């Protein structure tokens, strides 16, 4: 039998299951850690550039067979950049990341399976 001491007094990290640690880099606002306005503008330019390239790729017939992978990669990059910097997920509490990634991963997981049952990939 595990003694009471083991069970009760052992400090159980909050991080365990679904949510962040109580004293997770939270508390004070993270403004100071956030990018500066200048950096924001740079990031935006980068995103704009990616978009431009995307559209370009769409028209370059030479890349026809590579089109899908390229476009997907770009989309994922843009997605991640916005989430990480504009939405501060890179600087904010782990809890926020967990909540969002949980939903995102779950969505990708289940809908991939759904599409598979419709033989989506093979058509």
């Amino acid at each position, binding site marked *: *039998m595990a*003694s*009471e001491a083991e*069970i*009760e*007094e052992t*400090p*159980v990290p*909050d991080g*365990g*299951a*679904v*949510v962040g640690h*109580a004293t997770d880099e*939270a*508390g*004070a*606002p993270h403004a100071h850690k956030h990018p500066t306005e200048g950096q924001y503008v740079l990031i935006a330019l980068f995103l704009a550039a990616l978009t431009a390239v995307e559209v370009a790729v769409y028209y370059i017939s030479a890349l026809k067979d590579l089109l899908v992978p390229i476009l997907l990669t770009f989309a994922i990059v843009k997605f991640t950049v916005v989430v990480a910097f504009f939405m501060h997920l890179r600087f904010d509490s782990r*809890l926020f990341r967990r909540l969002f990634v*949980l*939903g995102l991963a*779950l969505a990708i*997981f*289940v809908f991939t*399976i*759904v599409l*598979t*049952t*419709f033989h989506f990939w093979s058509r």
Partner: protein
Amino acid sequence: MTIVTDPPARPPVAQPPDQPVRLLRRPTGYTKGIWSWVTTVDHKKIGIMYGVTAFIFFLLGGLEALMLRIQLGSPNNTFLSADTYNQVFTMHGTTMIFLFVMPLSAAFANYMIPIQIGARDVAFPRLNAFGYWVFLVGGLFMYSSFILGGAPNGGWFGYAPNTLKLYSPGHNIDFWVFGLQILGIASLTGAVNLIVTAINMRAPGMSLFRMPIFTWMSLVAQFLLLFAIPVITVALFLLMFDRTFGANFFNAQAGSDPLLWQHLFWLFGHPEVYILILPAMGIVSEVIPVFSRKPLFGYQVMVFSGIAIGFMGWGVWAHHMFATGLGPVATSAFSASTMFIAVPTGVKIFNWLATMWRGKITANAPMLFAVGFVAMFTIGGLSGVTHGVVPADTQQTDTYYVVAHFHYVLFGGSVFGLFAGIFYWYPKVVGHMLSDKLGKIQFWLFLIGFNMTFGPFHILGLQGMPRRIYTYPSHRGWDFWNMISTIGSFVIAAAVLLFIYNVWSSRKNPKVGNDPWDARTLEWSIPSPPPEYNFAEVPLVTARDDLWHRKYTEDENGRSIPRHPADAAAEADTEAVVRAAVTDEGSGDGDGSADDAHEGGDANDGDGHEADGGGHEEHEPHIHMPSPSYWPAFTSIGLAVICYGMIYRVWVVAILGGLWVLGGLYAWSLEPATAPDEPELDTEPSTDLEPVGAGPAGSPDGDGGSD
């Protein structure tokens, strides 16, 4: 239920006592009578309203069940016409799941989670009230179909294309679609609210792994809701567009594959069934330890198995589609995933048994219902596993064998668990005991009636009786067991009536103290019923089962012994006096009399160590609870207006409803959480709050509109 009529309404001390209640004026903590309920933002009152409403819907769903049973009691019966029967079984299933088990679980979650984690309210009290009113509006909306030309008749999972306009003209299905859409809003707001509450409102020291197991299981259920609701929302929207705007999502002639509906529905539907069972499992995990006078066996394992069930629940939905022709590969995969959900569930079953093992068991009503859960749910679970055996399921699916399975898990599981919770927490919520004797009789009637009603379904199913048939010919060998089942259902009905009588007849029972069961968790450390602010001083939690550890310690061979019996009693008395003085509410007295009302240990020990043991009355005036508000109730009604407008294609009405909702939300978000006439941090938040912008700060942000 009589609870409603005598609410523990008490004005927050801060209120200037001379405030006339005018409709245009903001309701205050002083508002009395019906309006105090319409405008309340107190999670306890909201919990009570959830509970009472859900119970009434249980009666309706049960009434429908009895109609089903009368019709099926004998072959070629003509008690119900085919279409009426289809309406009745559809509404029975929809009611029991969406209007009874879910909201009753929500009732317990609302009432107990904040108290169990030592909070004074949920994170978003007005959103909480909104959730309740939306639920009520959704339920009434769906039931209004009975008087508006016919109730939904497509089954509780409304398979397309049968639910398309072409095959289901008339508004029956529309009421189902829009009704569930409304109820979804209620569930989603509730989920967000309770998740934030459990994550963010825990008292100091209440680490996640000290949270009571009921809070844990409800939290998991809320996460399932958070992610499952959007899926059915989409499914319902697609169906709505098909029916209302001629879209083609489920129209095979247009090249669609109607199985899409089944995937979307069960992608929601299976997590849903765990949403229905996890809170009940949480309740059972609270009740069994208390009445075995032993801690829950393997708390951590219980938590993790709950989480595991939550995760695995996302990988099995297609087990509802084994006969649809998914192909051997997909079916094999889902067959395996389905079976292995039995593992974490089994762990729970065995841990409950291990909790009872070598305990000191008081077999009173709550405990009997809890043990009944373990016994009956196992049967349902086992039939579930036989469903997972795909080839066998092609024989079982859509027969009464399935109906047997899900009634054993839903009634033998959820309902037994919820009744355990009702008998266990009733004294805390209402302030006096239910009759344990009547409770026990009800339990045995339940157990016998339940097995009489649903046990035969196993046989009927295996004998090939399909579900959802309004009639069946004789000489199929189904007559006898159907009759038995019908008789059984009336035994259950008797038990339900007995419960109603119990509530009524026990209303004069002596008041109980804080801790009538000699229980383990925080809710039992405060008065019964609790004051509006729950804890005069937020407790400092030092251990799992904190209250128990304030009362007991363990001797060298691990038996629990009272810490300091003497002053426990003493403090309890002083404290009773204190509270009686502070709150004009006699919850403190009658402690002694509680003993004879039940078999629970000494009613006194425990409260003594609660945070508000003496001397805190000067704190009280500074506890401002958020003020009541009209807006949640007001706003929720707009949703029904939208839906009626949509159904009858009176677009102006729909638009008016939309404006109604927007207006309500806007007024709501501009309204400070706590009325300005109370000295409040609201209009200009004091600086020590900014860092996290928590609390009333930020009230007026416009994002009330984000849907």
